[in-house]
């Protein structure tokens, strides 16, 4: 029997896959002048064809999600319920796509600095983005697995993109080994849940809504077996790993430090946003309590906020500092996942958007200041650059203040929305921990600002010049949106709330 299929709902994903294939073909078949200034003999992309195709694909996918869905308000299912399109998934898809576009723009400058070939790099980014979009539309455990792998496997390769540098290869291998292990754990959890549904209802299915219904019913009747609880925990561990929540965060600093800076920036925002959305879709609502996961997630969120923020204090490498800061921000998102009401889900969405732009701005500054053969990585590398280049310094300052959560910047409203939802749902102590750890974070977020403006640049430091236009665009766009979301959060908050209501209504 041929299943019912509506490819019209899958257009953004198909556009990204097509763009990825076209990039590969263009890279392989279009005649290229071999770069004369290329020490490694790799053929670069002087006319930016690969970049152009990638951006067109991403923008087309985004435009279709924004304007091409028609007036359907409810959720639409296709592929026998494997694939769902709803406002919630679409909203997170937009956030992920915007993060990816910024990541691609930053990558362009970085790839030119490093003289790396662009074709495979962009194709991998496109394929990983496709995985993110499938993950956001997944309503079936098998689909979650496929989407997660499609997202992760290109990321393993991208982490090791600097294949002649030990650190980058180490990052790739570490991410591959630990990531595969986490996926296997998650799969074991899914298998147990699948077995439970089959035994309890007599009908074996991998559909998430059927699993949730069965778990809730069994829990209400007091018949939930231990192995189903184990399945829930294991399934959640896999996702928490991708979100680098404590105690599954060990890989984060090493991988973020070794990966290409633009990929670090993109991973830290988009993967986190997508994973938070999947956690909300699977574990949001009463099923979290039914599986006895609420207390576990509470502890994980508290530990993540605390350890992320305190470990960031001691870092001398800016990328490592931002890695631990991303761990901490994952913790704040987990608070929103716990308070899975429509306000809580909306807060996670807004927070993900605010974090995407605020964090991208910080990484954009690092890439902007890097030159051929010189990567800005430690705090010492930033010395005095703010006084030399006040605008770049200001961008770093705004980004750090937004990550801290200082009004009137985007990060403030993100944190405010999350903590308000948490208090409404009764997580008062978690909110207190969140606020205290936010206070800790001020110390390390101020450090780049202090170093950039209040210490002297070493002799011979020159202004960064000759940066590609793409890096400038990404820098300006990220900081403008960070300020804009802070000054006028109303429209975006309403949009987030409407999207989140679509999710909560479907429960």
């Amino acid at each position, binding site marked *: 029997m*041929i299943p019912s299929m509506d490819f019209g709902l899958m257009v953004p994903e198909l556009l990204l896959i097509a763009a990825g*294939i076209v990039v*590969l*073909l263009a*890279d*392989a*078949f279009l005649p290229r002048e071999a770069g004369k200034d290329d020490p490694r003999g790799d053929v670069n992309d002087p006319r930016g064809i690969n970049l152009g195709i990638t951006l067109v694909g991403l923008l087309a996918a985004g435009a279709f999600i924004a304007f091409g869905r028609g007036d359907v308000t409810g959720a639409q299912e296709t592929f026998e319920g494997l694939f769902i399109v709803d406002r919630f998934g679409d909203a997170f898809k937009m956030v992920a796509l915007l993060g990816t576009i910024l990541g691609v723009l930053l990558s362009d400058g970085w790839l030119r600095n490093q003289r790396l070939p662009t074709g495979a790099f962009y194709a991998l980014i496109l394929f990983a983005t496709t995985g993110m979009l499938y993950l956001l539309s997944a309503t079936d455990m098998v689909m979650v697995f496929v989407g997660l792998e499609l997202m992760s496997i290109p990321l393993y390769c991208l982490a090791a993109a600097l294949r002649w540098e030990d650190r980058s290869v180490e990052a790739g291998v570490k991410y591959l080994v630990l990531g595969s292990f986490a996926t296997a754990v998650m799969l074991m959890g899914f298998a147990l849940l699948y077995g439970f549904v089959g035994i309890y209802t007599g009908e074996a299915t991998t559909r998430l809504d059927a699993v949730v219904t069965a778990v809730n019913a069994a829990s209400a009747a007091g018949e939930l077996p231990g192995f189903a609880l184990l399945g829930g925990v294991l399934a959640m561990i896999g996702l928490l790993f991708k979100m680098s929540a404590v105690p599954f965060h060990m890989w984060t600093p090493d991988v973020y430090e070794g990966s290409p800076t633009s990929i670090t920036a993109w991973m830290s925002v988009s993967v986190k946003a997508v994973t938070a959305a999947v956690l909300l879709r699977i574990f949001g609502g009463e099923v979290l309590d039914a599986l006895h996961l609420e207390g576990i997630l509470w502890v994980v969120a508290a530990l993540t906020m605390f350890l992320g923020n305190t470990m960031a204090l001691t870092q001398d490498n800016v990328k490592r500092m931002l890695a631990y800061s991303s761990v901490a921000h994952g913790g704040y998102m987990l608070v929103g996942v716990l308070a899975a009401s429509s306000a809580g889900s909306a807060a996670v969405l807004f927070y993900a958007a605010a974090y995407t732009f605020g964090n991208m701005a910080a990484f954009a500054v690092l890439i902007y200041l890097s030159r051929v053969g010189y990567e800005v990585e430690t705090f010492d590398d930033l010395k005095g650059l703010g006084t030399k280049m006040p605008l770049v310094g200001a961008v770093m300052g705004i980004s750090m203040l937004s990550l801290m959560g200082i009004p009137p910047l985007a990060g403030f409203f993100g944190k405010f929305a999350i903590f308000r939802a948490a208090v409404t749902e009764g997580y008062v102590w978690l909110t207190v921990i969140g606020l205290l750890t936010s206070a800790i974070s001020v110390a390390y977020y101020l450090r780049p600002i202090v170093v950039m403006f209040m210490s002297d640049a070493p002799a011979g430091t020159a202004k960064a010049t000759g940066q590609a236009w793409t890096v400038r665009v990404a820098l300006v766009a990220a900081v403008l949106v960070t300020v804009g979301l802070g000054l006028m959060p109303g429209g975006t908050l309403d949009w987030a709330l409407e999207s989140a209501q679509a999710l909560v209504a479907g429960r």
Partner: protein
Amino acid sequence: MTAQYLPVLMITLGALGFMAVMLGINSLLGTKRKHEQMPKIMLEPFECGSPPLQTDNRRRTAVKYYLVAILFVMFDLETVLLYPWAVLYKELGLFGLVELLVFMISLVVGLAYAWRKGALEWR
């Protein structure tokens, strides 16, 4: 319900018991000497005939083998999908043909990319 697993338990106990008996008899009857006091013949591998070769068996393999192996896996997987399609060819009809063509084309794209990037050259 658990009774059907009784043979497994019996086999497990039997195996453990056999092991214990063999090792026990050996340690009861055998002469005990310190390592240094043993004649050289006693340090040879037991009943294996010849002493092991003292060569290092770990050798590095050129990365080009892996490249070919990965390309091979690509077409291996294609075959895995081709068989069920061939069995169900009549039932799937045009739909199945188009689906398979999409799959084959994307596979060929991959091969073309590998070919243009020089993955097929043996250097």
